[in-house]
């Protein structure tokens, strides 16, 4: 296997693994948020900002891997 093929395979695995983690965390957050809104609909407005910020931090983990893949891709020969 060439280096590029190996890198592509490793990149896919790394992205998939990090996406599993992010998706799991985001799903948990969103489900709890929905529960909270269902119990207290008036609080929906105040929950939006912390919820979005929390989701963004989880999303960022996958995106960091994505960015690293692109940064390192230039070094593979």
């Amino acid at each position: 296997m060439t280096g590029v093929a190996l890198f592509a395979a490793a990149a896919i695995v790394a992205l998939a693994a990090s996406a599993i983690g992010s998706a799991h965390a985001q799903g948990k957050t969103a489900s709890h948020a929905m529960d909270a809104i269902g119990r207290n609909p008036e609080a929906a407005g105040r929950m939006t900002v912390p919820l979005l910020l929390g989701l963004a931090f989880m999303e960022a983990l996958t995106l960091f891997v994505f960015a690293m893949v692109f940064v390192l891709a230039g070094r593979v020969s």
Partner: protein
Amino acid sequence: MSFLWLAEGAATAAGEQNAVLFHLFGLEVTSVVTTEWALMAIVILFFFIATRRLERVPKSRLQSVVEFAVESLYGFVKGQMGEERAREFVPLIGSFFIFILVSNYSGLIPGAGHVAGFAAPTSHWSVTLGLALVVFFATQYYGVKKQGFNYIKRMFQPYIIAPLIFVMNVLDHVVRPMSLSLRLYANIFGGETVVLALLVAIPYFLPITTLLLELIFGFIQAFIFTALTTVYLTEATGEEEE
């Protein structure tokens, strides 16, 4: 065969995006920079026209739209940091929001990234890192300006573990622009890459789904950038809230 041609075009387009168009005062001017200029001109022109004949009770639709946008931004910042500081920081935070939103959406216009002189600015790390560095320096400047020595002192609290906590605080401040810029860049660039991949796989109708998602993401990412900026500035300029 057309798929192969598309894939080839996509590959060359990615390289062309960073191609230097011309030099200005010894600095390289790329498609990203020209797009930024165009977007700035459009935004300035739009707000100039919208605020040319202001009326107490808006008659024109344009003024109503702009008033709604500015009031929502102001309301959001006010909810986070209070009336007094909101008046000071809304120009900075609002400009960030408008510029990032327009940049994100400029990537959805057909030809973005393929036509010379036209590429979505936020899909390049250099642009988002620049924006994030402005946030970083603004945080330090306003922190020292508003709190004076207290701002430095708070980095060591609690004093029992002062060395450790100081290192942690410095690390936190240094990592912030990195995470802030990487999040925005990777989101927009990643969206573009996914659209490109779908376009290569099935050129008809399939990319529309991702483009629709990109419409939502573009707004959310602009909002998250501004929300985090607001949080950082609020934290730096004082702990008390009314």
